[in-house]
């Protein structure tokens, strides 16, 4: 185990150097996890995870159900704090800042790390208010005109503007499933985060809506660090540049998506992507 993580980070550095010209100006690792363990009560859900996630790109977490990929994702914006029995050890840094440090304000962390959930969860408010919610609670805009701009540009970035621009005051819950999910993405973008976490964002959507969301993810990666948990290996292959494979609470292998799907080093990864389990 120890061996493989050392290997991985070495490979990662090579990879980062190789793609440096693509991500010029960005730091090589946006999110850095060192020896992260998560316990739900007595259950050891995540075991000694080490990973570096580069900025400006899409990182996919794949693995069978219950392998800890969502748990790890929820560590990155400390959503696990809302679960009373959950305990996290180890170190996660974003831009070299320890996010589990006592001095860190979790509210500010979450303003920098947006999240999109498995099931679209628009607030039972108007479309406009859904998007305006984040900027409003963080006081990002000074007046109505600025807010209008933020709402419009967020909806445009989420490729939803043209569909809803004439009914911004309608309820967000009245949209179709795919539109709701893109609304949730717009809502996350509106606070201008660095990182967007997506927890199986397409699992509740039909194929057409899925395609739209995937196209959107592909467009967003030039501006954000996107981390996506997915059950669908095809989706990981389509949208991500790097992929991490989780199995039974451990991070088995992390590499460029191409390598993971064409030439994985670990037998378990090989078995999973060829459909032998999971």
């Amino acid at each position, binding site marked *: 185990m120890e061996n493989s993580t050392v290997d991985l980070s070495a490979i990662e550095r090579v990879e980062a150097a190789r793609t440096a010209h693509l991500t010029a100006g960005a730091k090589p690792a946006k999110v850095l996890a060192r020896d992260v363990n998560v316990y739900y009560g007595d259950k050891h859900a995540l075991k000694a995870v080490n990973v570096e996630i580069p900025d400006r790109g899409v990182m996919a977490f794949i693995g069978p159900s219950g392998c800890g990929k969502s748990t790890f994702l929820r560590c990155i*914006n400390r959503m696990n704090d809302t679960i009373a029995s959950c305990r996290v050890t180890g170190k996660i840094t974003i831009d070299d800042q320890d996010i589990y440090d006592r001095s860190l304000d979790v509210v500010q962390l979450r303003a920098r790390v947006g*999240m999109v959930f498995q099931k679209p*969860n628009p*607030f*039972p*408010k108007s479309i406009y208010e859904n998007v305006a919610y984040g900027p409003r*609670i963080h006081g990002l805009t000074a007046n109505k005109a600025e807010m209008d701009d933020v709402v419009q540009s967020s909806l445009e970035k989420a490729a939803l503007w043209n569909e809803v621009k004439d009914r911004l005051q309608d*309820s967000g819950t009245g949209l179709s499933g795919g539109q709701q999910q893109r609304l949730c993405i717009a809502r996350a973008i509106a606070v201008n985060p660095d990182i967007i976490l997506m927890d199986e964002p397409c699992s509740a959507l039909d194929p057409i809506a899925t395609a739209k969301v995937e196209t959107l993810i592909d467009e967003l990666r030039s501006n954000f660090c996107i981390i996506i948990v997915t059950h669908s290996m095809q989706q990981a292959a389509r949208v991500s540049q790097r992929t991490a494979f989780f199995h039974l609470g451990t991070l088995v292998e992390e590499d460029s998506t191409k390598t993971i799907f064409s030439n994985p080093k670990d037998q378990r990864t090989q078995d999973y992507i060829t459909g032998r389990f999971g």
Partner: protein
Amino acid sequence: MTVVYFTALALLTLSAYVLASRRSVALSSTGVRLHSLPAYHGLLAISLVIVPMLLIWAVGTPLVSQFAASNALTNFPAETRNDALQAGSALREIKNLAAGQRSGDVSDTLRAAADTYSAWRTTGDYLLLSIGLAAALLGIAASLRLVSGPFRARNHFESVVRVILLACAGVAVLTTIGIVASVLTETIRFFFDPNIKGRPGVFDFLFGTEWNPQQAMRADQGDIKSAYGFVPLLTGTLLITAIAMCVAGPLGLLSAIYLAEYASPRMRRYAKPVLEILAGVPTVVLGFFAALTVAPYIRGWGEALGLDVASESALAAGLVMGMMIIPFISSLSDDVMNAVPQSLRDGAYALGATKSEAIKQVVLPAALPGIVSAFMLAMSRAIGETMIVVMAAGLAANLTLNPLDAVTTITVQIKTILVGDQEFDSAKTLAAFALGFVLFFITLILNIIALRIVRKYREQYD
């Protein structure tokens, strides 16, 4: 006789089930494919026994009783029979004697009448029993004949169930209609019956500012001026309700927020039942708490501040009533807040909302329809509450908005008017029905408003 009838009913029900299901089992063992399971054949047989027997009993018993009574009364002279009051008292004596509950001298006429009554009763009861038994046996025979492979006992039993459910729902609806109709009839008499002395006009009732329902019972009492102005009662009711809602609204809602969002599961497990016990305290207990503890305290406190406080004050009644309705608000609001999906909270947290922001801006708006209906329910409870106000607010119909004065409410006046001996053709008694009708109307309006609000937000939020 009733005992015999129902014992027979029970035995026949049991045997109908056993016979019909056995027969269908026997049939299927000969290789016939049954459409319905044996239990359904049995249940259908049961309904063919129970329904006719209960119907015969429900229709027959009053008929028998009435027939026996009218035959017994033939022993009395015609003038007794034709006077409703005398006939009624004679009938009571007959029944008491027949039941062996009458002591003292018994006249021959009465003795003879009681014997006639008992004889007719016995005959009638036996007749009823035999008709019932015959119907039940017919039912069993019919259900046994019906048992066959293709017979759809399951579907038929399903329609029996539907009719039973419909009948139960019908009872509730008909009762409501009946209550409204009876109150409405008396209210119309109160306003428009020319035989009622001292009745007010509709306008005087609705807008009059003086309430004094006294009436001369005897000629020597002179002419007491009575007044039926409804306004002081309305203001009293609204004043006390407003005080109660001022107490219960914030306390109930805030404790609901604590229970639903902040309390640990352990805390919630203990705190919620304790809060609900408050709803189970009999209002008469709360009433004397209000009258004997809270009211003197308020009076003492008012006097210390140099205020003029009546010993029975709207404030005391309102405060205690507020305590009473806290659980309605807190428990229901807690339930609806718990029903708000966790994903909405997660969505707010993920955007960097603090806990109180998430509650204020996401959970409460999403739970608003339920919270509004909780408030409305609490308010109708407060408006309809009687015992606390009787004991703590007094009877003086003062037209005032000062919470330190004694006021009276619609419910208190209804109770005051109807307690004790009443003559049914006086304006005083009928005024209670008019008040009841107005009270019903107010709560109806409140409910309609609540439904409107709930529907409006439902449309927006779901």
